[in-house]
Structure formats: C-alpha cells, structure tokens
C-alpha cells in the first residue's frame, strides 16, 4: 500500500504539474488568468483524435501537429480577443472564460460525447517498480513532466526571449523602454502556454477516454495548483503539484475516492482565504487584498 501511494502519488503530481504548466506560464509572463485553458486542453485531444482517426496520420506525426495547432490558436486568441481588453482583469477573465465555454460546448454540440474518443498511448504495456504495477505512459508523464519543468525554467531564466518575457511581467514600462514589444511578448506567452496545454493533453488524455467535463475539471486542477504554489513561481508549481498529487492519492486510497475532487476545491478556497499569493508567490501581496 505504501509503495503504491508513493508511486501513484508521484504520477498524479506529474499529471497535475503538466496540466498546470501552460496556465502558470501565461499568468507568470503576461498576467492573464487564462480560463480558456481547459477548453484548449480538450480541443487538443479532439484535434489529435481527428488527425489520427479521420485523416489517418500516424500518432507520432499527429502529436507535433496538434501542439503547433494549439500554439497558433493561443496566438490568435491573443490577437483577436485579449488584445482589446488588455489590462482590464475582469474583462480578461470573462473573455477567456467565454472562449473556454464556447470551445467545450461546441464540441459537446458536435457530438464528441461518446466512448469512442480516445487517443493512443505512446508506449503500450507496463512494468513493476517495488512490486507496484505501473504503465509506461505514467512513467513517461513523470519523466517528461520533470524535463519540461526544467526546460521551462531554463527558458525563462537563461534565454533572451525568456528574459524579455519575464521583464515584461515584472515591469512593463521599463521593458517597453528597452524595446520589448508588449503585444509580441503577451501573444508569444499565450502561444507557448496553449502549446503546453496541448502537450499535457496528449500525454494525459490517453489514460482514459476524452469527455467534455474533463475540460472544466482540468481548469479546477490547474487553478488549485497555481493558486497553492503562487501564481508565477516555478518552484511553487512543483511543490504544489506534489502536495496536491499526494493529497489526492492518499484520499483516494485511505478514504473515499469521492472526496478526491473536494481536495482541490478545498485547498483552492483555503489558500485564497489565508494566503492568496500562495506558498511561493512574491511581490503581489498588495494587489491581491487591502
């Protein structure tokens, strides 16, 4: 029991972190709380399904194509919708929320609700670690999750583009005076974040079937993780995913699986009530409350 809690806790944490990476990237770099995250996540799943099953592409080719399509979609969402409401937080939230609902309910209307919708795993089969059976897909998720978090951290801290984006997030006027284009930075962060959402979807969705309500559920996961960790901190993201992933596994194993979703919502509410900047959030204390 103990070993299985550790291993599945790790897997669940990696799933949470992967799902939240894109959202946290966008919020950290452009300050937009992208509530369309769940919609983009699910859209990528369906796009991959269409590419594989209707157009007959091999999955390994469909994978990068889907990620690229989602990235372009994020770029478009910024230029068509977000650019006009930039800086008005309420309007941004309502606009992205509306975009998310439109995507999800459009797929529901088009009939993407049956059990046939699943995308293939990268590698079939499984193995045993410490006597606990685990499939390769979850191992890949753990590995890629850690790799991506490291890559993202490296990108944000050691590449010119990453530093330009972070500069924009920290002090917009100074960044502008240094010649960084605000719209370009924000659109790029939307594109990257959406591509990350697609990547997460393509790795996580094969674990089950794709259902519309997953889109709303993912949004809750992501909000819980980012709020707990602190909205713009990479370490916070990792720690929060571990905390919530293990909390979820422990509740599922020792209590009732029905309480698993309550864990996220309760942590979201409690963290917002006690310390809204999260465990590792910085320099935003005064913007959040009076």
């Amino acid at each position, binding site marked *: 029991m103990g070993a299985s809690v550790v291993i599945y806790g790790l897997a669940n944490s990696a799933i949470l972190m992967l799902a939240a990476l894109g959202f946290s990237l966008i919020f950290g770099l452009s300050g937009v709380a992208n509530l369309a995250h769940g919609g983009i996540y699910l859209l990528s799943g369906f796009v991959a399904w269409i590419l594989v099953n209707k157009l007959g592409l091999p999955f390994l080719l469909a994978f990068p194509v889907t990620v690229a399509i989602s990235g372009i979609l994020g770029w478009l969402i910024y230029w068509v919708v977000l650019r006009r409401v930039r800086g008005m937080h309420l309007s941004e939230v309502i606009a992205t929320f509306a975009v998310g609902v439109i995507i999800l*309910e459009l797929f529901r209307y088009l009939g993407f609700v049956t059990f046939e919708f699943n995308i293939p795993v990268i590698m079939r089969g499984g193995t045993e670690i410490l006597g606990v059976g685990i499939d390769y897909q979850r191992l890949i998720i753990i590995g890629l999750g850690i790799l991506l978090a490291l890559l993202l951290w490296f990108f944000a801290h050691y590449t010119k583009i990453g530093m330009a984006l972070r500069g924009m997030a920290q002090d917009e006027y100074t960044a502008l005076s240094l010649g960084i284009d605000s719209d370009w930075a924000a659109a790029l962060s939307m594109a990257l974040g959406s591509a990350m959402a697609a990547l997460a979807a393509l790795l996580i969705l094969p674990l089950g079937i794709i259902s519309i309500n997953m889109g709303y559920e993912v949004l809750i996961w992501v909000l819980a993780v980012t709020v707990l960790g602190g909205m713009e901190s990479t370490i916070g993201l990792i720690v929060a995913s571990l905390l919530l992933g293990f909390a979820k596994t422990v509740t599922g194993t020792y209590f009732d699986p029905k309480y698993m979703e309550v864990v996220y919502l309760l942590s979201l509410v409690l963290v917002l009530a006690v310390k809204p900047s999260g465990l590792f959030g910085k320099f935003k204390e005064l913007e959040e409350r009076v």
Partner: protein
Amino acid sequence: MRVQAGLRKERLDRGIKARTDDIFAIGSPREIMYLTMPRVVVIAALFTFPLLKDFTGMYWQNVMMITATIALLALSWDMLHSVGLVSLGQALFFGVGAYTTGYLNYHLGISPYISIPMATVVGAFICTAILFPVLRLRGIYFGLITFALPLLMMRVIEATKILGGTEGMSGLTPLPGITIKLYVIIAVALVCVFGFQRLFDTDYGLVLKAIRDNDRTVIAAGFDVQWYKAQALFIAALPATFAGAFLSHHYQFVGMPAFAMDYSILPLASVIIGGPGSFVGAMLGAFILVPLSEFLRAFGTLRIVIYSLMMLIFVVGVPEGIFHYLKRKYHQFERVVSIEEVEKK
C-alpha cells in the same frame, strides 16, 4: 458608421438636463412624459404579461419566471460589482437560499410564507459569513474563490450525503397560482432595481462606490472598508437568496442543480450584455438573454455556445452594454459637424 474625413460627430445633451446626469429641469408635461414614459411603459409591460396567460401559454409564463430569477441574480451581481467585488459564482447565493428554504420546509415543515423570507435573510447571513474571511481579496482572486465555492458545495453534498445528497429534497409545499407568483417576483425585482439605485444616491452608497473606485483612499479617509463590504455583500445576497428560495418552491424541489454553473454564467452574461453599473442594464440583459436561450432550446447545447459568444462579443466590442447605449441615444442628439465649425468654438 464611419464619419467622412473633415467631419466630426458631435453629441449634445437634451435641453432639460441640468448640470449632472441625474438632475433635470422640467418645464412642461411633455418633458415629464419624456422622463417617466420609459419607466412606466416597462413596468406596465411587466405587470401585464402575467395576465396574458391564455395568449402566451403556460410555457412562456414559466420562462418569465426563470427570466425574473436570473434578473434577480444579475441584480445581485451588479450590486457586488458596484462595491468592486467580482463574482463568478452567483450559484452560491442561489443554492444557499434554495437549500435553506428546502431544509426549513422539508425537515421542519415551516410554511413557505415564512420559510421563503427566512431563507432570504438567513441565507444572506450564511453567504456573508462564508465570504467574510475572503472579503479582503481584490480583483480576480475574489472571482476565483466564488467560482470554486458552488462547485465545492456540490461535491460536499454529493460526497457526504447531507441535505438529501444526490437525491435532493422533493415535495416542497407549492405556492399558489403562476400569476400571483409572477407578480411577487417581478415586484421584488423592481423594488431591488429602484431600491439599489436609491441606495447608491445616498451618502452610504457614495462610500460603497468609492470602495470600488479606490479602496485605499477610502481606508485613508477613515472608513472601515471590510465592514462596508460585508454590509454590501449582505444586501447583494438578498435578491439572490430570495430567487433561490422562491424558485425551489416553484419547482417544489431542491437538489444539487441549485449550485449548477448555469446560475453563475447566465447572470454574468446578462449583466455584460445589458451593461453593468446601472441595475436596469442587468435586468434588461436577463430579459434579452433568457427568452433568447429558450428560443434556441431546439439547438441543445449550442445555445450555451451562442450566449457565451454574445458575452464575448459584448465584453470585447461593446463593454458599455446595451442599456448605456440606449440611454445615450435617448438623452443625446447626435449630429455631424465639419472640422471648421469645431475649431471655431
């Protein structure tokens, strides 16, 4: 409506407007008519509708019921927004009101004439108590917590099976006659609209408005912002909890759907479409959106897409909303003048 090069559009207030938006200098019966007619026509139309039961059929009477409910929730949203609190979960207030009256009526057997008013006040107290610790939050953080709370309530009720669990509580005492019910709920909505408008004209309302515009200045002026926000929250919760309590006696059922996301999205979309900040706009939005979504019922979930799309278009393209647009057209002349004329002034 592009204006040609060298020409500018000029807006002129009508002559009766004196100094500010709300003070008018009236000189003739015609001008009194001009000011009162819009209100009188709307109120008369609202109160005639329930009498046309044979003409419209029961179906549209029921739609009117839901419309008025959403209008109350939208009013509550607009009231919260006027204090700078953005709610993404009006379903919380609705659900708390519904479950309170459900508990009072189902378990304690209290008549709906007492349980609905009690649920309105007690429910508003409960909501204020729940949200009191997070009133300090600003901007989207308050929105996120209100987004999560109704979902949390739903999961908790589902998991712990309290208050009827997934089954809910059915067989609540019915209320008499659809006509009377409609009159009651429309009257309550109108009282809220005009009451809230009055409230914001008083000195008390001025403090509330100031909290929205710049809360730190209000603190610096020596007001207890949290206490004012809590009072505003209580007032804002009243119409929403009433709507919840009233509609559950209308359906004779309380269950988890009371916390459904519909009751959060529809009021929000109503206010965005109608125009925030004036209360009439919130109501107008509900009266446009809900009947429209009933017309679209044949399209299934496509109607959610359509009203989300409308919400998106309005928030991006027409942020002032329909009501403010109409009001401007009604109160101002527009004419095209040439640049030379403008420069001469």
